[in-house]
């Protein structure tokens, strides 16, 4: 059953180094949705000063930019666990892209919770999250080693990004695999600049 999963909290990436008997670092790359245009965001095409409309501007030059947004942010949650020197921790991260840092991007930690850790479990260095290729929004999870630290990692999508459904004014039905139309309700519209 995936009832809750059917709505929220998909796992973007998961890996285990349980069988990494060489006791060497292990890493995994994955790509997050930060560059795809939001096709449910449609530009206004008429009305007074519509080219200054915030939704119009967002469509032309912001999050709805057809060639891909130049800046975006995504929230990820990472749960890492260890089974020998046992322990677990959960961290939330924000990955930013900005056109002024197009070659780098940056990742910031939002929060951390540490679980029931054995004394020798290293909760500070059991994994790292870095940007492997900002141009493709490719991230890298890297573990120190198997055995003494965490050896299973799951990465959850928690919000943000670009491959999302826009439900505000000028929003249209989503399309494509896994899409689900949010009921658009014009009571929840967004105003012009006020």
């Amino acid at each position, binding site marked *: 059953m995936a009832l809750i999963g059917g709505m929220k909290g998909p796992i973007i990436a998961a890996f285990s180094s349980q069988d990494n008997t060489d006791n060497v670092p292990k890493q995994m790359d994955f790509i997050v949705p930060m560059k795809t245009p939001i096709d449910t965001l449609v530009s206004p095409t008429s009305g007074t000063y519509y080219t200054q409309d915030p*939704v119009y501007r967002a469509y032309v030059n*912001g999050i709805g930019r057809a060639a891909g947004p130049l800046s975006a942010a995504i929230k990820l949650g990472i749960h890492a666990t260890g089974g020998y020197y046992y322990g677990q921790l959960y961290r939330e991260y924000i990955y930013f892209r900005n056109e002024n840092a197009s070659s780098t991007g940056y990742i910031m930690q939002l929060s951390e919770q540490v679980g029931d850790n054995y004394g020798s479990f290293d909760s500070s260095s059991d994994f790292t999250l870095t940007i492997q290729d900002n141009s493709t929004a490719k991230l890298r999870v890297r573990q120190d080693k198997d055995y003494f630290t965490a050896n299973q990692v799951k990465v959850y999508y928690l919000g943000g*990004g670009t491959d999302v459904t826009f439900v505000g004014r000028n929003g249209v039905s989503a*399309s494509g*695999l896994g899409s689900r139309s949010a009921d658009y309700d014009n009571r*929840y*519209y967004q105003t012009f600049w006020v």
Partner: protein
Amino acid sequence: MALIGGNGGILIACAESNVYASNGGHDGSNGGAMQFDFYLPVDVQDTITLPSSTMDPRSNYNTGFTVHYIATHSSGTYYWGNNWKEWVIMRRYDNGSAGWSASIAQVAEVIHRGHPSFNGGGSGSGTWPTLTLQNASTLQIRCRIGGDYWNSNRIEVYYLGGSAESPMIGQGQSHPDYNYHVDTTYSE
């Protein structure tokens, strides 16, 4: 395509202010604060069947009481940087004369000042965006993003979770399969 959107990624408002709106239809001069309003979903949770027995703890449940967990991502391009804030917005009804009441609280933030003057400068939290309550009965929220030059000039408002218009999957659900089927006939 909205693959992530199909799994809960919801964008409820967005804006970009790189072009100064010279028509006077907003508050602020060039470089001043710009603002727009958006509305949060406060419709009844129609997947809940309220019991007829007053002994049931779900009786008298008011579906209009809602909490909304949202995030804002604002970014600037001149004095550049990025800012992520998370907010909790709660709404209740006062049985006295006050009627609907709502509160807005910021619960988390991370900021990266690529330029030291981005979003208020310094090392503290970002000056923008701000969210203020315009109308509790409709949960109309006003978002100010600062000017289009020194601060943020793009913003996205994401819905992260909460109770309004969310499907009930526990006891009392009226149609638990509501909007949940993924049809594999449709593929890309």
